Protein backbone atom coordinates (compact mmCIF):
# COMPACT_ATOMS: atom_id res chain seq x y z
CA UNK A 1 0.00 0.00 0.00
CA UNK A 2 1.35 3.38 -0.94
CA UNK A 3 0.95 6.21 1.50
CA UNK A 4 2.69 8.82 -0.62
CA UNK A 5 0.50 11.77 -1.40
CA UNK A 6 -0.27 11.43 -5.11
CA UNK A 7 1.19 13.98 -7.49
CA UNK A 8 -1.43 15.75 -9.56
CA UNK A 9 -2.65 13.61 -12.46
CA UNK A 10 -2.14 16.04 -15.33
CA UNK A 11 1.47 16.58 -14.36
CA UNK A 12 2.02 12.86 -14.17
CA UNK A 13 0.67 12.49 -17.69
CA UNK A 14 2.96 15.20 -19.01
CA UNK A 15 5.92 13.56 -17.31
CA UNK A 16 4.89 10.14 -18.50
CA UNK A 17 5.00 11.54 -22.00
CA UNK A 18 8.58 12.68 -21.62
CA UNK A 19 10.21 10.23 -19.27
CA UNK A 20 9.86 7.09 -17.26
CA UNK A 21 7.30 5.06 -19.12
CA UNK A 22 8.58 5.38 -22.65
CA UNK A 23 12.32 5.45 -23.05
CA UNK A 24 12.10 5.27 -26.82
CA UNK A 25 9.80 8.27 -26.88
CA UNK A 26 12.20 10.10 -24.57
CA UNK A 27 15.11 9.32 -26.88
CA UNK A 28 13.04 10.42 -29.89
CA UNK A 29 12.20 13.77 -28.28
CA UNK A 30 15.86 14.28 -27.54
CA UNK A 31 16.93 13.36 -31.07
CA UNK A 32 14.35 15.71 -32.60
CA UNK A 33 15.55 18.58 -30.41
CA UNK A 34 19.18 17.88 -31.31
CA UNK A 35 18.47 17.71 -35.05
CA UNK A 36 16.54 20.97 -34.82
CA UNK A 37 19.52 22.47 -32.99
CA UNK A 38 21.91 21.29 -35.70
CA UNK A 39 19.72 22.72 -38.48
CA UNK A 40 19.45 26.02 -36.61
CA UNK A 41 23.24 26.09 -36.19
CA UNK A 42 23.86 25.27 -39.85
CA UNK A 43 21.50 28.05 -40.93
CA UNK A 44 23.33 30.55 -38.70
CA UNK A 45 25.50 32.81 -40.87
CA UNK A 46 29.22 32.00 -40.65
CA UNK A 47 28.66 29.02 -38.32
CA UNK A 48 30.11 26.69 -40.95
CA UNK A 49 33.28 28.73 -41.39
CA UNK A 50 36.67 27.32 -40.37
CA UNK A 51 37.38 29.75 -37.49
CA UNK A 52 33.97 29.22 -35.95
CA UNK A 53 34.21 25.44 -36.19
CA UNK A 54 37.72 25.43 -34.69
CA UNK A 55 36.45 27.61 -31.84
CA UNK A 56 33.57 25.19 -31.38
CA UNK A 57 35.88 22.18 -31.22
CA UNK A 58 38.33 23.75 -28.74
CA UNK A 59 35.54 25.02 -26.46
CA UNK A 60 33.86 21.65 -26.59
CA UNK A 61 37.13 19.88 -25.72
CA UNK A 62 37.81 21.84 -22.56
CA UNK A 63 34.25 21.69 -21.23
CA UNK A 64 34.00 18.15 -22.55
CA UNK A 65 36.85 16.70 -20.50
CA UNK A 66 35.34 18.26 -17.37
CA UNK A 67 31.89 16.93 -18.31
CA UNK A 68 33.32 13.45 -18.79
CA UNK A 69 34.67 13.73 -15.25
CA UNK A 70 31.33 14.99 -13.97
CA UNK A 71 29.64 12.00 -15.63
CA UNK A 72 31.52 9.63 -13.32
CA UNK A 73 30.26 11.51 -10.26
CA UNK A 74 26.67 11.77 -11.52
CA UNK A 75 26.57 8.06 -12.39
CA UNK A 76 27.91 7.17 -8.94
CA UNK A 77 24.73 8.67 -7.45
CA UNK A 78 26.44 11.73 -5.96
CA UNK A 79 24.62 14.30 -8.13
CA UNK A 80 27.47 16.66 -9.04
CA UNK A 81 30.60 18.29 -7.75
CA UNK A 82 31.05 22.03 -7.33
CA UNK A 83 34.82 21.62 -7.12
CA UNK A 84 35.80 20.26 -10.55
CA UNK A 85 36.26 23.74 -12.05
CA UNK A 86 38.57 24.68 -9.18
CA UNK A 87 40.39 21.36 -9.65
CA UNK A 88 40.89 22.13 -13.33
CA UNK A 89 42.23 25.62 -12.60
CA UNK A 90 44.58 24.44 -9.85
CA UNK A 91 45.81 21.51 -11.95
CA UNK A 92 46.54 23.95 -14.77
CA UNK A 93 48.76 25.89 -12.35
CA UNK A 94 50.49 22.74 -11.16
CA UNK A 95 51.03 21.77 -14.80
CA UNK A 96 52.71 25.06 -15.70
CA UNK A 97 54.85 25.12 -12.54
CA UNK A 98 56.12 21.60 -13.25
CA UNK A 99 56.51 22.39 -16.96
CA UNK A 100 58.80 25.29 -16.16
CA UNK A 101 60.75 23.26 -13.63
CA UNK A 102 60.91 19.69 -14.93
CA UNK A 103 59.63 19.39 -18.48
CA UNK A 104 56.54 18.21 -20.27
CA UNK A 105 56.29 14.56 -19.21
CA UNK A 106 56.72 15.32 -15.52
CA UNK A 107 54.20 18.17 -15.82
CA UNK A 108 51.57 15.99 -17.46
CA UNK A 109 51.95 13.17 -14.94
CA UNK A 110 52.17 15.54 -11.99
CA UNK A 111 49.10 17.59 -12.90
CA UNK A 112 46.94 14.56 -13.69
CA UNK A 113 47.93 12.83 -10.45
CA UNK A 114 47.35 16.04 -8.52
CA UNK A 115 43.83 16.40 -9.90
CA UNK A 116 43.02 12.74 -9.29
CA UNK A 117 44.31 12.86 -5.71
CA UNK A 118 42.52 16.12 -4.91
CA UNK A 119 39.14 14.84 -6.06
CA UNK A 120 39.83 11.28 -4.93
CA UNK A 121 40.21 12.55 -1.38
CA UNK A 122 36.67 13.98 -1.55
CA UNK A 123 35.49 10.64 -2.91
CA UNK A 124 37.08 8.92 0.06
CA UNK A 125 35.12 11.10 2.50
CA UNK A 126 31.90 10.64 0.53
CA UNK A 127 32.33 6.88 0.09
CA UNK A 128 33.70 5.89 3.47
CA UNK A 129 31.56 7.84 5.91
CA UNK A 130 28.80 8.83 3.44
CA UNK A 131 29.27 12.55 3.97
CA UNK A 132 26.95 14.70 1.84
CA UNK A 133 28.68 14.95 -1.57
CA UNK A 134 27.30 18.43 -2.36
CA UNK A 135 28.51 19.92 0.92
CA UNK A 136 31.91 18.22 0.62
CA UNK A 137 32.37 19.58 -2.91
CA UNK A 138 31.34 23.11 -1.92
CA UNK A 139 33.83 23.02 0.96
CA UNK A 140 36.51 21.63 -1.35
CA UNK A 141 35.84 24.42 -3.85
CA UNK A 142 36.46 27.12 -1.22
CA UNK A 143 39.50 25.31 0.17
CA UNK A 144 41.12 24.94 -3.27
CA UNK A 145 40.49 28.60 -4.09
CA UNK A 146 41.77 29.73 -0.70
CA UNK A 147 44.86 27.54 -0.78
CA UNK A 148 45.87 28.47 -4.31
CA UNK A 149 45.27 32.19 -3.78
CA UNK A 150 47.54 31.85 -0.78
CA UNK A 151 50.26 29.86 -2.56
CA UNK A 152 50.37 32.00 -5.70
CA UNK A 153 49.67 35.38 -4.12
CA UNK A 154 46.61 35.68 -6.40
CA UNK A 155 48.75 35.92 -9.55
CA UNK A 156 48.78 33.98 -12.80
CA UNK A 157 51.38 31.30 -13.46
CA UNK A 158 53.00 31.78 -16.87
CA UNK A 159 54.73 29.28 -19.12
CA UNK A 160 58.44 29.97 -19.81
CA UNK A 161 59.18 31.06 -23.35
CA UNK A 162 61.24 27.94 -24.05
CA UNK A 163 58.75 25.51 -22.51
CA UNK A 164 58.24 22.35 -24.52
CA UNK A 165 54.46 22.22 -24.72
CA UNK A 166 54.02 23.76 -28.16
CA UNK A 167 53.84 20.33 -29.78
CA UNK A 168 50.45 19.97 -28.07
CA UNK A 169 49.20 23.10 -29.80
CA UNK A 170 49.26 21.71 -33.31
CA UNK A 171 46.29 20.57 -35.37
CA UNK A 172 46.19 17.22 -37.12
CA UNK A 173 44.38 17.44 -40.47
CA UNK A 174 42.70 20.66 -39.43
CA UNK A 175 41.35 19.15 -36.21
CA UNK A 176 42.79 20.75 -33.07
CA UNK A 177 44.72 18.23 -30.99
CA UNK A 178 42.62 19.19 -27.96
CA UNK A 179 39.60 17.67 -29.67
CA UNK A 180 41.46 14.41 -30.34
CA UNK A 181 42.42 14.27 -26.66
CA UNK A 182 38.79 14.87 -25.66
CA UNK A 183 37.52 12.12 -27.99
CA UNK A 184 40.16 9.74 -26.62
CA UNK A 185 39.01 10.57 -23.09
CA UNK A 186 35.39 9.85 -24.05
CA UNK A 187 36.28 6.52 -25.68
CA UNK A 188 38.45 5.41 -22.76
CA UNK A 189 35.79 6.54 -20.29
CA UNK A 190 33.13 4.55 -22.11
CA UNK A 191 35.38 1.46 -22.15
CA UNK A 192 35.88 1.81 -18.39
CA UNK A 193 32.13 2.16 -17.84
CA UNK A 194 31.04 -0.66 -20.14
CA UNK A 195 33.79 -3.26 -20.10
CA UNK A 196 35.45 -3.17 -16.70
CA UNK A 197 34.30 -4.62 -13.40
CA UNK A 198 34.79 -1.19 -11.84
CA UNK A 199 32.49 0.43 -14.40
CA UNK A 200 29.71 -2.13 -13.97
CA UNK A 201 30.00 -1.87 -10.18
CA UNK A 202 29.86 1.92 -10.41
CA UNK A 203 26.53 1.73 -12.27
CA UNK A 204 25.23 -0.64 -9.58
CA UNK A 205 26.32 1.61 -6.72
CA UNK A 206 24.67 4.58 -8.41
CA UNK A 207 21.38 2.82 -9.05
CA UNK A 208 20.94 1.60 -5.49
CA UNK A 209 23.42 2.03 -2.70
CA UNK A 210 21.64 -0.22 -0.18
CA UNK A 211 21.36 -3.03 -2.73
CA UNK A 212 24.99 -2.67 -3.77
CA UNK A 213 25.99 -2.81 -0.11
CA UNK A 214 23.77 -5.83 0.51
CA UNK A 215 25.48 -7.85 -2.22
CA UNK A 216 28.80 -6.96 -0.66
CA UNK A 217 30.26 -4.56 -3.21
CA UNK A 218 33.21 -2.55 -1.85
CA UNK A 219 31.46 0.84 -1.82
CA UNK A 220 34.37 2.98 -0.63
CA UNK A 221 36.89 1.92 -3.34
CA UNK A 222 34.23 2.26 -6.05
CA UNK A 223 33.19 5.81 -5.06
CA UNK A 224 36.86 6.68 -4.54
CA UNK A 225 37.63 5.39 -8.04
CA UNK A 226 34.81 7.40 -9.60
CA UNK A 227 36.06 10.59 -7.95
CA UNK A 228 39.66 9.83 -8.99
CA UNK A 229 38.52 9.47 -12.63
CA UNK A 230 36.59 12.75 -12.28
CA UNK A 231 39.65 14.55 -10.89
CA UNK A 232 41.90 13.06 -13.58
CA UNK A 233 39.62 14.30 -16.36
CA UNK A 234 39.21 17.74 -14.73
CA UNK A 235 42.99 18.05 -14.54
CA UNK A 236 43.10 17.12 -18.24
CA UNK A 237 40.75 19.97 -19.06
CA UNK A 238 42.88 22.30 -16.94
CA UNK A 239 45.98 21.21 -18.88
CA UNK A 240 44.23 21.94 -22.18
CA UNK A 241 43.41 25.45 -20.89
CA UNK A 242 46.98 26.03 -19.74
CA UNK A 243 48.37 24.93 -23.10
CA UNK A 244 45.98 27.15 -25.00
CA UNK A 245 46.61 30.32 -22.98
CA UNK A 246 50.24 29.71 -21.88
CA UNK A 247 49.16 30.73 -18.41
CA UNK A 248 46.84 29.69 -15.60
CA UNK A 249 45.01 31.40 -12.78
CA UNK A 250 42.21 30.58 -10.40
CA UNK A 251 39.55 32.48 -12.38
CA UNK A 252 40.04 30.09 -15.31
CA UNK A 253 37.34 27.58 -14.81
CA UNK A 254 34.60 29.64 -13.20
CA UNK A 255 31.22 28.42 -14.46
CA UNK A 256 32.69 25.22 -15.90
CA UNK A 257 31.01 23.15 -13.19
CA UNK A 258 27.66 24.45 -14.42
CA UNK A 259 28.42 23.93 -18.10
CA UNK A 260 29.56 20.42 -17.27
CA UNK A 261 26.48 19.39 -15.29
CA UNK A 262 24.33 20.94 -18.03
CA UNK A 263 26.14 18.85 -20.67
CA UNK A 264 25.77 15.67 -18.61
CA UNK A 265 22.04 16.21 -18.06
CA UNK A 266 21.26 17.37 -21.60
CA UNK A 267 23.05 14.29 -22.89
CA UNK A 268 20.56 12.12 -21.02
CA UNK A 269 22.42 10.86 -17.95
CA UNK A 270 19.78 11.10 -15.21
CA UNK A 271 20.72 13.21 -12.19
CA UNK A 272 19.77 10.47 -9.73
CA UNK A 273 22.64 8.29 -11.02
CA UNK A 274 22.93 4.62 -11.80
CA UNK A 275 22.60 5.10 -15.53
CA UNK A 276 24.42 7.06 -18.19
CA UNK A 277 27.28 6.90 -20.61
CA UNK A 278 30.15 8.91 -22.05
CA UNK A 279 28.51 8.84 -25.48
CA UNK A 280 25.51 10.68 -24.03
CA UNK A 281 27.83 13.21 -22.44
CA UNK A 282 29.54 13.67 -25.82
CA UNK A 283 26.14 14.50 -27.33
CA UNK A 284 25.36 16.86 -24.43
CA UNK A 285 28.71 18.63 -24.78
CA UNK A 286 28.00 19.02 -28.50
CA UNK A 287 24.58 20.54 -27.80
CA UNK A 288 25.84 22.93 -25.09
CA UNK A 289 28.82 24.10 -27.17
CA UNK A 290 26.70 24.59 -30.30
CA UNK A 291 24.24 26.69 -28.30
CA UNK A 292 27.13 28.77 -26.93
CA UNK A 293 28.71 29.39 -30.32
CA UNK A 294 25.38 30.16 -32.01
CA UNK A 295 24.39 32.63 -29.27
CA UNK A 296 27.79 34.26 -29.68
CA UNK A 297 27.38 34.48 -33.48
CA UNK A 298 24.00 36.15 -33.08
CA UNK A 299 25.69 38.76 -30.93
CA UNK A 300 24.31 37.69 -27.56
CA UNK A 301 26.77 38.37 -24.80
CA UNK A 302 28.04 35.96 -22.19
CA UNK A 303 25.20 36.64 -19.71
CA UNK A 304 22.60 35.16 -22.07
CA UNK A 305 24.67 32.01 -22.25
CA UNK A 306 24.56 31.68 -18.44
CA UNK A 307 20.82 32.27 -18.45
CA UNK A 308 20.24 29.78 -21.29
CA UNK A 309 22.34 27.14 -19.49
CA UNK A 310 20.28 27.64 -16.35
CA UNK A 311 16.95 27.36 -18.13
CA UNK A 312 18.06 24.27 -20.04
CA UNK A 313 19.18 22.52 -16.87
CA UNK A 314 15.93 23.40 -15.10
CA UNK A 315 13.86 22.17 -18.04
CA UNK A 316 15.77 18.91 -18.40
CA UNK A 317 15.50 18.22 -14.67
CA UNK A 318 11.75 18.93 -14.59
CA UNK A 319 11.02 16.85 -17.66
CA UNK A 320 13.39 13.94 -17.31
CA UNK A 321 14.57 13.36 -13.78
CA UNK A 322 13.02 10.49 -11.92
CA UNK A 323 11.35 10.57 -8.54
CA UNK A 324 13.18 11.98 -5.60
CA UNK A 325 16.91 11.42 -5.25
Amino acid at each position, binding site marked *: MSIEQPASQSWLQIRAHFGGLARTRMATTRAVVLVALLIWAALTPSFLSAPSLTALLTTASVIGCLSAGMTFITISGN*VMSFALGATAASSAMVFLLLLNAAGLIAALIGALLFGAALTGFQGLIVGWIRANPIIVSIAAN*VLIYGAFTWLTGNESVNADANASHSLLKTAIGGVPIEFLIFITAIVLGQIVLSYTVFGRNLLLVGSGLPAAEAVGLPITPIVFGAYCCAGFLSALSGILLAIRYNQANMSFAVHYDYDAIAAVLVGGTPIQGGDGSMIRTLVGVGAISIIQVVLLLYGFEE*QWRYFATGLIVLLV*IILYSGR*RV
Partner: protein
Amino acid sequence: MTPIFLRPTVRPFLILVGVVLLLAAIDAGNGRILTVATAYSALQSFSTFALVALGLGLTMLIGEFDLSIAGVFGLAGCVALTTGAENAEIGLLCAVGVGAAFGLLQGLVITSLDLGSVPVTLGGLLTASGLSYVITHNQAISSDNLDLATTINDQIAGVFSIRSLVVLAIFAACAIVFAATRLGRDLVAVGSDRKAAIIAGVEVKKLVLGAFTFSGVMAALSGSMLSYGLASASPSGLSDVLVPSAAAAILGGVSLSGGTGTPFGVAAGALTLTMLRSGLNAVAAPPFAHDLATGLILLAVAVSDAPYLMRRMTFLGSRFRRTLE
Protein backbone atom coordinates in the same frame (compact mmCIF):
# COMPACT_ATOMS: atom_id res chain seq x y z
CA MET B 1 21.72 7.92 25.03
CA THR B 2 23.65 10.81 23.60
CA PRO B 3 25.61 12.77 26.21
CA ILE B 4 23.97 16.13 26.87
CA PHE B 5 26.79 18.20 25.35
CA LEU B 6 26.47 16.37 22.02
CA ARG B 7 22.73 16.89 21.64
CA PRO B 8 21.93 19.05 18.62
CA THR B 9 19.96 21.45 20.82
CA VAL B 10 22.88 22.08 23.16
CA ARG B 11 26.01 21.58 21.03
CA PRO B 12 25.79 24.84 18.96
CA PHE B 13 25.80 27.03 22.08
CA LEU B 14 28.71 25.15 23.63
CA ILE B 15 30.71 25.57 20.41
CA LEU B 16 29.88 29.30 20.41
CA VAL B 17 31.00 29.70 24.03
CA GLY B 18 34.14 27.71 23.21
CA VAL B 19 35.00 29.99 20.30
CA VAL B 20 34.46 33.13 22.38
CA LEU B 21 36.67 31.70 25.15
CA LEU B 22 39.29 30.76 22.53
CA LEU B 23 39.30 34.30 21.14
CA ALA B 24 39.53 35.68 24.68
CA ALA B 25 42.49 33.43 25.37
CA ILE B 26 44.29 34.49 22.16
CA ASP B 27 43.45 38.09 22.98
CA ALA B 28 44.88 37.68 26.49
CA GLY B 29 43.60 41.03 27.73
CA ASN B 30 45.22 43.07 24.95
CA GLY B 31 41.81 44.42 23.91
CA ARG B 32 42.39 43.64 20.23
CA ILE B 33 39.73 41.02 19.55
CA LEU B 34 36.98 41.28 22.14
CA THR B 35 36.00 44.91 21.65
CA VAL B 36 32.79 46.79 20.87
CA ALA B 37 34.08 47.33 17.34
CA THR B 38 34.51 43.59 16.88
CA ALA B 39 31.04 42.94 18.23
CA TYR B 40 29.63 45.45 15.74
CA SER B 41 31.51 43.98 12.78
CA ALA B 42 30.58 40.46 13.87
CA LEU B 43 26.90 41.44 13.92
CA GLN B 44 27.25 43.13 10.54
CA SER B 45 28.67 40.03 8.87
CA PHE B 46 26.14 37.96 10.86
CA SER B 47 23.34 39.92 9.20
CA THR B 48 24.66 39.23 5.69
CA PHE B 49 24.14 35.48 5.80
CA ALA B 50 22.35 34.47 9.03
CA LEU B 51 18.88 34.78 7.46
CA VAL B 52 20.03 32.75 4.45
CA ALA B 53 21.24 30.12 6.90
CA LEU B 54 17.86 30.25 8.62
CA GLY B 55 16.00 29.63 5.34
CA LEU B 56 18.41 26.91 4.27
CA GLY B 57 18.20 25.40 7.77
CA LEU B 58 14.41 25.28 7.53
CA THR B 59 14.56 23.35 4.24
CA MET B 60 17.16 21.02 5.79
CA LEU B 61 14.96 20.56 8.86
CA ILE B 62 12.19 19.10 6.68
CA GLY B 63 14.70 16.85 4.90
CA GLU B 64 15.18 18.92 1.74
CA PHE B 65 18.02 21.17 0.58
CA ASP B 66 17.74 24.56 -1.12
CA LEU B 67 20.81 25.14 -3.31
CA SER B 68 19.15 28.07 -5.07
CA ILE B 69 19.63 30.47 -2.14
CA ALA B 70 23.03 31.50 -3.49
CA GLY B 71 21.52 32.46 -6.84
CA VAL B 72 18.47 34.16 -5.32
CA PHE B 73 20.71 36.09 -2.90
CA GLY B 74 22.70 37.63 -5.76
CA LEU B 75 19.65 38.08 -7.99
CA ALA B 76 17.76 39.94 -5.25
CA GLY B 77 20.65 42.35 -4.78
CA CYS B 78 20.72 43.12 -8.49
CA VAL B 79 16.92 43.44 -8.67
CA ALA B 80 16.84 45.73 -5.62
CA LEU B 81 19.40 48.12 -7.07
CA THR B 82 17.96 48.22 -10.60
CA THR B 83 14.30 48.61 -9.61
CA GLY B 84 14.97 50.67 -6.50
CA ALA B 85 16.98 53.46 -8.11
CA GLU B 86 14.17 55.97 -7.43
CA ASN B 87 12.50 54.42 -4.43
CA ALA B 88 14.34 51.95 -2.22
CA GLU B 89 11.15 50.46 -0.74
CA ILE B 90 9.88 49.49 -4.18
CA GLY B 91 13.24 47.91 -4.96
CA LEU B 92 13.10 45.91 -1.73
CA LEU B 93 9.53 44.79 -2.49
CA CYS B 94 10.49 43.73 -6.02
CA ALA B 95 13.53 41.83 -4.76
CA VAL B 96 11.62 40.03 -2.01
CA GLY B 97 8.82 39.31 -4.50
CA VAL B 98 11.30 37.72 -6.90
CA GLY B 99 12.73 35.65 -4.04
CA ALA B 100 9.26 34.51 -2.94
CA ALA B 101 8.31 33.65 -6.52
CA PHE B 102 11.49 31.63 -7.02
CA GLY B 103 10.96 29.73 -3.78
CA LEU B 104 7.28 29.12 -4.44
CA LEU B 105 7.85 27.90 -8.01
CA GLN B 106 10.59 25.51 -6.92
CA GLY B 107 8.41 24.29 -4.08
CA LEU B 108 5.56 23.68 -6.53
CA VAL B 109 7.79 21.73 -8.90
CA ILE B 110 9.17 19.66 -6.03
CA THR B 111 5.80 18.84 -4.47
CA SER B 112 3.63 18.44 -7.57
CA LEU B 113 6.15 16.38 -9.56
CA ASP B 114 7.64 14.62 -6.52
CA LEU B 115 11.19 15.50 -7.57
CA GLY B 116 14.29 15.70 -5.40
CA SER B 117 15.00 19.18 -4.08
CA VAL B 118 18.73 19.11 -4.91
CA PRO B 119 18.27 18.76 -8.70
CA VAL B 120 15.37 21.20 -8.86
CA THR B 121 17.11 23.88 -6.81
CA LEU B 122 20.30 23.28 -8.81
CA GLY B 123 18.27 24.32 -11.86
CA GLY B 124 16.89 27.24 -9.84
CA LEU B 125 20.41 28.27 -8.78
CA LEU B 126 21.67 28.31 -12.37
CA THR B 127 18.57 30.13 -13.65
CA ALA B 128 18.66 32.77 -10.90
CA SER B 129 22.37 33.34 -11.36
CA GLY B 130 21.94 33.54 -15.16
CA LEU B 131 19.09 36.00 -14.69
CA SER B 132 21.24 38.25 -12.52
CA TYR B 133 23.96 38.27 -15.19
CA VAL B 134 21.31 39.27 -17.73
CA ILE B 135 19.78 42.14 -15.75
CA THR B 136 23.18 43.58 -14.83
CA HIS B 137 24.66 43.04 -18.32
CA ASN B 138 27.46 40.98 -16.77
CA GLN B 139 28.85 43.90 -14.76
CA ALA B 140 28.94 45.02 -11.18
CA ILE B 141 26.34 47.75 -10.69
CA SER B 142 26.32 50.51 -8.11
CA SER B 143 23.78 52.92 -6.70
CA ASP B 144 24.35 56.55 -5.75
CA ASN B 145 22.03 56.28 -2.77
CA LEU B 146 24.85 56.42 -0.24
CA ASP B 147 22.59 57.97 2.43
CA LEU B 148 20.59 54.78 2.58
CA ALA B 149 23.80 52.76 2.78
CA THR B 150 25.00 54.72 5.82
CA THR B 151 21.56 54.76 7.45
CA ILE B 152 21.05 51.02 7.52
CA ASN B 153 24.63 50.37 8.64
CA ASP B 154 24.82 53.14 11.27
CA GLN B 155 25.76 51.98 14.75
CA ILE B 156 22.88 51.84 17.19
CA ALA B 157 23.87 51.46 20.86
CA GLY B 158 27.41 50.69 19.77
CA VAL B 159 26.97 47.21 18.44
CA PHE B 160 23.71 47.12 16.46
CA SER B 161 22.57 48.60 13.15
CA ILE B 162 19.19 48.68 11.39
CA ARG B 163 20.32 45.71 9.31
CA SER B 164 21.34 43.56 12.25
CA LEU B 165 18.28 44.57 14.29
CA VAL B 166 15.98 43.45 11.44
CA VAL B 167 17.80 40.14 11.27
CA LEU B 168 17.67 39.63 15.05
CA ALA B 169 13.95 40.48 15.12
CA ILE B 170 13.20 37.90 12.42
CA PHE B 171 15.20 35.30 14.33
CA ALA B 172 13.27 36.05 17.52
CA ALA B 173 9.92 35.82 15.73
CA CYS B 174 10.89 32.51 14.11
CA ALA B 175 12.12 31.09 17.38
CA ILE B 176 8.81 31.93 19.08
CA VAL B 177 6.74 30.43 16.24
CA PHE B 178 8.96 27.38 16.18
CA ALA B 179 8.86 26.74 19.92
CA ALA B 180 5.29 27.71 20.75
CA THR B 181 3.07 26.77 17.82
CA ARG B 182 1.95 23.59 16.15
CA LEU B 183 3.78 24.71 13.01
CA GLY B 184 7.13 24.07 14.68
CA ARG B 185 6.22 20.56 15.73
CA ASP B 186 4.76 19.78 12.31
CA LEU B 187 8.00 20.85 10.64
CA VAL B 188 10.04 18.58 12.90
CA ALA B 189 7.57 15.76 12.21
CA VAL B 190 7.95 16.17 8.44
CA GLY B 191 11.72 16.07 8.74
CA SER B 192 11.85 13.10 11.11
CA ASP B 193 9.51 10.77 9.25
CA ARG B 194 7.59 12.09 6.29
CA LYS B 195 5.27 9.10 5.91
CA ALA B 196 4.36 9.14 9.58
CA ALA B 197 3.67 12.86 9.33
CA ILE B 198 1.32 12.30 6.38
CA ILE B 199 -0.55 9.62 8.30
CA ALA B 200 -0.76 11.87 11.35
CA GLY B 201 -2.53 14.44 9.18
CA VAL B 202 0.25 16.97 8.71
CA GLU B 203 -0.20 18.90 5.48
CA VAL B 204 3.24 18.03 4.20
CA LYS B 205 2.94 19.63 0.77
CA LYS B 206 1.90 22.99 2.19
CA LEU B 207 4.80 22.91 4.65
CA VAL B 208 7.30 22.08 1.90
CA LEU B 209 5.90 24.90 -0.25
CA GLY B 210 6.05 27.25 2.71
CA ALA B 211 9.61 26.27 3.60
CA PHE B 212 10.92 26.92 0.09
CA THR B 213 9.06 30.22 -0.16
CA PHE B 214 10.43 31.25 3.24
CA SER B 215 13.93 30.30 2.17
CA GLY B 216 13.59 32.31 -1.06
CA VAL B 217 12.28 35.35 0.85
CA MET B 218 15.08 35.16 3.43
CA ALA B 219 17.76 34.90 0.74
CA ALA B 220 16.22 37.81 -1.17
CA LEU B 221 15.89 39.96 1.95
CA SER B 222 19.52 39.41 2.95
CA GLY B 223 20.74 39.92 -0.61
CA SER B 224 18.91 43.21 -1.08
CA MET B 225 19.85 44.52 2.37
CA LEU B 226 23.50 43.73 1.63
CA SER B 227 23.34 45.46 -1.75
CA TYR B 228 21.69 48.55 -0.24
CA GLY B 229 24.29 48.54 2.51
CA LEU B 230 27.17 48.34 0.03
CA ALA B 231 25.38 50.53 -2.57
CA SER B 232 26.50 47.99 -5.15
CA ALA B 233 25.64 44.54 -6.46
CA SER B 234 27.41 42.00 -8.61
CA PRO B 235 26.10 38.90 -10.35
CA SER B 236 29.07 36.72 -9.35
CA GLY B 237 30.07 35.58 -5.89
CA LEU B 238 28.27 32.30 -5.47
CA SER B 239 30.29 30.69 -2.73
CA ASP B 240 30.29 33.87 -0.67
CA VAL B 241 26.92 33.03 0.84
CA LEU B 242 26.32 29.32 0.22
CA VAL B 243 29.40 28.19 2.13
CA PRO B 244 28.87 30.14 5.36
CA SER B 245 25.10 29.48 5.30
CA ALA B 246 25.47 25.73 4.96
CA ALA B 247 28.23 25.71 7.57
CA ALA B 248 26.15 27.84 9.97
CA ALA B 249 23.07 25.64 9.61
CA ILE B 250 24.97 22.39 10.23
CA LEU B 251 27.04 23.95 13.04
CA GLY B 252 23.73 25.15 14.46
CA GLY B 253 22.51 21.60 14.92
CA VAL B 254 20.46 21.15 11.74
CA SER B 255 21.17 17.73 10.31
CA LEU B 256 21.25 17.08 6.57
CA SER B 257 19.07 14.06 7.19
CA GLY B 258 16.32 16.28 8.60
CA GLY B 259 14.31 16.43 11.81
CA THR B 260 16.68 18.37 14.05
CA GLY B 261 17.50 22.02 14.50
CA THR B 262 16.09 25.24 15.94
CA PRO B 263 16.24 28.91 14.86
CA PHE B 264 18.36 29.81 17.90
CA GLY B 265 20.74 26.98 17.06
CA VAL B 266 21.19 28.37 13.54
CA ALA B 267 21.79 31.82 15.04
CA ALA B 268 24.46 30.34 17.33
CA GLY B 269 26.05 28.57 14.36
CA ALA B 270 26.13 31.78 12.33
CA LEU B 271 27.52 33.74 15.30
CA THR B 272 30.27 31.17 15.75
CA LEU B 273 31.38 31.69 12.15
CA THR B 274 31.20 35.47 12.35
CA MET B 275 33.13 35.53 15.63
CA LEU B 276 35.87 33.50 13.98
CA ARG B 277 35.91 35.83 10.99
CA SER B 278 36.02 38.94 13.14
CA GLY B 279 38.80 37.35 15.14
CA LEU B 280 40.75 36.76 11.93
CA ASN B 281 40.07 40.36 10.89
CA ALA B 282 41.20 41.70 14.24
CA VAL B 283 44.57 39.97 13.91
CA ALA B 284 44.75 41.25 10.29
CA ALA B 285 44.73 37.84 8.62
CA PRO B 286 44.83 37.95 4.79
CA PRO B 287 41.55 37.36 2.85
CA PHE B 288 42.36 33.77 1.88
CA ALA B 289 42.46 32.89 5.57
CA HIS B 290 38.68 33.42 5.66
CA ASP B 291 38.20 31.05 2.75
CA LEU B 292 40.44 28.44 4.32
CA ALA B 293 38.80 28.77 7.73
CA THR B 294 35.19 28.58 6.50
CA GLY B 295 36.07 25.82 4.03
CA LEU B 296 37.71 23.75 6.76
CA ILE B 297 34.76 24.31 9.10
CA LEU B 298 32.27 23.28 6.40
CA LEU B 299 34.31 20.16 5.64
CA ALA B 300 34.53 19.36 9.35
CA VAL B 301 30.78 19.74 9.91
CA ALA B 302 30.06 17.69 6.78
CA VAL B 303 32.22 14.92 8.23
CA SER B 304 30.65 15.22 11.68
CA ASP B 305 27.16 15.02 10.14
CA ALA B 306 28.02 12.00 7.97
CA PRO B 307 25.68 9.04 8.70
CA TYR B 308 28.44 6.40 8.75
CA LEU B 309 30.93 8.32 10.87
CA MET B 310 30.16 6.58 14.19
CA ARG B 311 30.07 3.14 12.56
CA ARG B 312 33.48 3.65 10.94
CA MET B 313 35.00 5.03 14.13
CA THR B 314 33.72 2.06 16.15
CA PHE B 315 35.17 -0.25 13.52
CA LEU B 316 38.55 1.47 13.60
CA GLY B 317 38.47 1.46 17.41
CA SER B 318 37.84 -2.26 17.65
CA ARG B 319 40.51 -3.03 15.05
CA PHE B 320 42.95 -0.84 16.97
CA ARG B 321 42.20 -2.69 20.22
CA ARG B 322 42.66 -6.03 18.46
CA THR B 323 46.11 -5.04 17.21
CA LEU B 324 47.04 -4.03 20.74
CA GLU B 325 46.10 -7.39 22.21
